[in-house]
């Protein structure tokens, strides 16, 4: 309904292959990004930034990473938590060992470390597929967490076994550590998300993304076309783990402040997996929608009874949350197996064709 497309014709392939070929989409997305950057830091209170928006943005980055691997390259992974832990511990070691290193560089290096680990655990993907691969990634998950738990070097021999984000600045502004304000941390996380989302889009709409999707859709046909499966899958593992690694580093440095291995256990892997299922496999937008859904629904479930005057014990609330969560997953799979992103896509298609149904 809001779309006006007559006269939007393309005279070059560059314009035809643009990320948002429709003017209205470009305007909407630009506005959306501006609002995301400007409004929360100015308007939202500490609780919303710290407890909702910052984790949301970080989860979105992790979900994006997993979606590249699972949604685009078709390699099911349950090791997200482990790869995020690699990012977090690498960032901790880097900042404490090289205090002069810019924190943004640390994030990237932490991501690269995670990428290397991802490649190692991705090697089995050449021979095994589907659920078997999921088990292999579980091995990564449990092994990595065990490793960080057992080797005191990773926590600089701290007796508590926790890692803590030291204070660091970017352009003189405190970004990490206890003195970094929530708005600053939010903007940094969002900035990283925006940049990496663009990078992800560029990857999936070109050569790399097509070889991933080819492997995902028909691995044998892809090979016969000339796609080299090992190289392609390992690249997917590397890029995905890079994203998860950066997200893991942010998780400790921009969100929690300090953490133990417990923060990265198998539950986190599942949480991120749910985000991409509910959001939509094989969709960048889906990663965001899924993260928002998984973060916001529990908040809604916590607050909704309160608003209608119901008082519930915390345990009951937690249980209801689990049930609603599970039921929603099943509901979404039945209604739309391709997630929120597909729902949005259908809505958009309807809006474009309105008043015609198809």
């Amino acid at each position, binding site marked *: *309904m809001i779309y006006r*497309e007559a006269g939007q*014709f*393309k*005279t070059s*392939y560059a*314009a*035809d292959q643009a990320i948002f070929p429709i003017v209205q989409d470009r305007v909407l997305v630009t506005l959306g990004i501006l609002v995301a950057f400007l409004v929360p830091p100015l308007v939202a209170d500490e609780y919303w930034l710290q407890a909702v928006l910052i984790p949301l943005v970080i989860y979105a980055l992790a979900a994006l990473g997993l979606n590249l691997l699972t949604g685009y390259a078709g390699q099911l992974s349950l090791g997200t938590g482990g790869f995020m832990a690699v990012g977090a511990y690498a960032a901790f070691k880097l900042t404490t060992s090289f205090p002069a290193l810019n924190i943004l560089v640390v994030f990237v290096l932490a991501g690269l470390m995670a990428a290397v680990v991802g490649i190692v655990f991705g090697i089995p993907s050449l021979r095994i597929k589907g659920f078997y691969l999921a088990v292999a990634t579980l091995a990564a998950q449990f092994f990595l967490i065990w490793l960080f738990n057992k080797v005191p070097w990773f926590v600089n021999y701290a007796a508590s076994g926790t890692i803590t984000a030291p204070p660091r600045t970017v352009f003189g502004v405190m970004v990490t550590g206890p003195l970094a304000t929530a708005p600053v941390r939010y903007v940094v996380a969002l900035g990283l998300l925006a940049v990496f989302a663009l990078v992800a889009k560029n990857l999936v709409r070109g050569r790399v993304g097509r070889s991933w999707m080819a492997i995902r859709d028909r691995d044998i046909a892809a090979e016969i076309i000339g796609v080299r499966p090992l190289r392609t899958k390992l690249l997917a593992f590397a890029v995905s783990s890079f994203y998860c690694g950066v997200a893991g580093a942010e998780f400790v440095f921009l969100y929690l402040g300090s953490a133990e291995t417990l923060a990265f256990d198998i539950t986190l892997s599942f949480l991120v997996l749910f985000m991409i299922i509910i959001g939509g496999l094989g969709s960048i937008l889906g990663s965001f929608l899924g993260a928002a859904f998984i973060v916001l629904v529990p908040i809604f479930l916590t607050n909704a009874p309160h608003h209608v005057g119901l008082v519930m014990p915390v345990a009951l609330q937690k249980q209801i949350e689990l049930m609603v969560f599970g039921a929603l997953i099943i509901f979404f799979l039945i209604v739309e197996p391709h997630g929120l992103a597909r729902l949005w896509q259908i809505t958009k298609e309807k809006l474009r064709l309105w008043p015609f*149904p198809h």
Partner: protein
Amino acid sequence: MTTIEAGLDTFPKLVRSNAERRPHKIAIREKDLGIWQAYTWRQYFERARRIALGLAALGFARGDKAAIIGDNRPELYWAVAATQALGGVPVPLYQDSIEKELAYIVDHAEARFAVVEDQEQVDKLLHIRAQCPRLESIVYDDSRGMRAYSDPCLISLAELEERGDKLAVGQPGYFDAELARGSADDVAIICYTSGTTGSPKGTMLTHRNMIVMGRNAIEREGLRHDEEVLAYLPMAWVGDHIFSYAQSVLTGFTVNCPESAATVLHDLKEIGPTYFFAPPRIWENLLTNVMIRVEDAARPKRALVHFFLGVAQALERARLHGRTPSAWRRLLHPLGQALVYGPLRDNLGMRRIRVAYTAGEAIGPEIFVFFRSLGINVKQLYGMTESSALVAIQPNGDVRLDTVGTPLPGVEIRISEQGEVLYRSPGVFVGYFKNTEATRQTLEDGWVRSGDAGFIDAAGHLKIIDRARDVSRLAGGTIFAPKYLENKLKFSPYVKEAVCLGQDRPFVTALVNIDLAAVGNWAERRGIAYTSYTDLSQRAEVYDLIEHEVRRVNASLLDDDVLKGARIRKFLILHKELDPDDEEITRTRKVRRGFIAQKYAALIEALYGDGDRVQVQAQVTYEDGRTGTVRADVKIRDVALRATAAGEASL
């Protein structure tokens, strides 16, 4: 009236002037290889020049004719300009012509050259070469599938242009000299019109005809250099030549060629033209298309759309009749604009339209109102090949339902004693090629007999009733205008074609062609199974459906004092589609009344008899040229009989 400046008196000279004055302005686009490939006026001129030189290298001489055959392609428009630049005459032909038609025109026009789009046209020309001894060279643009052809008369466009380049090296001044020799009174184009009777006639139009007339219309309509036009109607039609070539060259606006016939609607939406023209046929198809698609929508949405369409149509009707629309409708209109009209216009690709024409035939008033009510400035245009397509146009802000508007600047109109419309204008043709007899019959002292019956009303608008020879009376003396009825019938999405009969008969009857897409869809939604067109057409349910439409038409006639005596009493649904290949309708989809009366005599007699069904056998021509026989049992439905039974006013 405009005069022609020196040096700008032929179209190729105007193209050159565009190339100099606005070298980087886009002249023409073509959807090819997935995107709109654009060519500037400089490229337009350059390509036309190279093609002209190539033709010259093949021996093209002043006055030679070149047949142009194919879909709307930039290369073919360039070939038109190239031919004109050499003082030759382009003869565009319908790309879907069968070999017989093609052979007649190519031979009659004495074409020495043909510039064609692709293998399909080459094959046809090679087949008919024996009948066209003057045809020497065939230039083809698309070399797909041409590798196995070794006939020496064939040359690809690329090769032609290379030859042209060589010629230019040897005779650098050749092209400019030839271009300069052209004058306003050279014949610029010969358009063959098939007509409803007889052999096609070649209408000769000069550069002066089209420059002056084209410019008059540009000024009247306020056309600018930034218009966008979709060139999708056959190049052989004079309308396309005026709108997609002449006026584009005159103003410098951009012409867009669709990717293929199958993608026209999609391309229309992409381009979103500002200036658009379509015969009633296309408007009808668009409307049918809209209605079918809306029918598939969920019930609430469908109701919403119908409601707001109703509001808009009531508003538009009031406006056209000069009444003040009701206040609540005016209040609802902005909402409808946001919810229905705007999106619908956009989806049709008509959001940006500033001026649109319906031309070639009378349009059903319902169709006309529908599009105008959406906010599309569609206007009726009256004209014909003999007048360079332009005689009268409804002025902006003064559009009426039943007239074709006021004469364009420079056009004079008078009505003969027999009631026939005669006109005289700078656009009037110089004669039919090699047919002085026909020229004499049509053209007299600069006045052209239009063949239409009509009159000029008090406000100076021209009103056309029907073809002069088709308006007739029933046996009882009542006035009977078949086309008027037919157009009303065709407003229904379910009716594709209709032929009304009644001259010297006691009452009016109709032969109806159902629209397979719409009726098929309708039947599917009701779970009516059918095996073929013939089967579907004879289903009782379908007869009920069509009867409902006939009743609607009859009811609408009650308003008109003159015509209400000529309501449809009986109808039948034809068992096959009327087809140009069977010569039942022309390529421009005009009904060949005489031919049909003869071919379906048995059916018509049955309509005026007592039976309720009739056996038919008919010859049909398949796509590959084979013929076969179709047998069917056609039912006859008496509307009056049932109307009486239903307690309505009897006829």
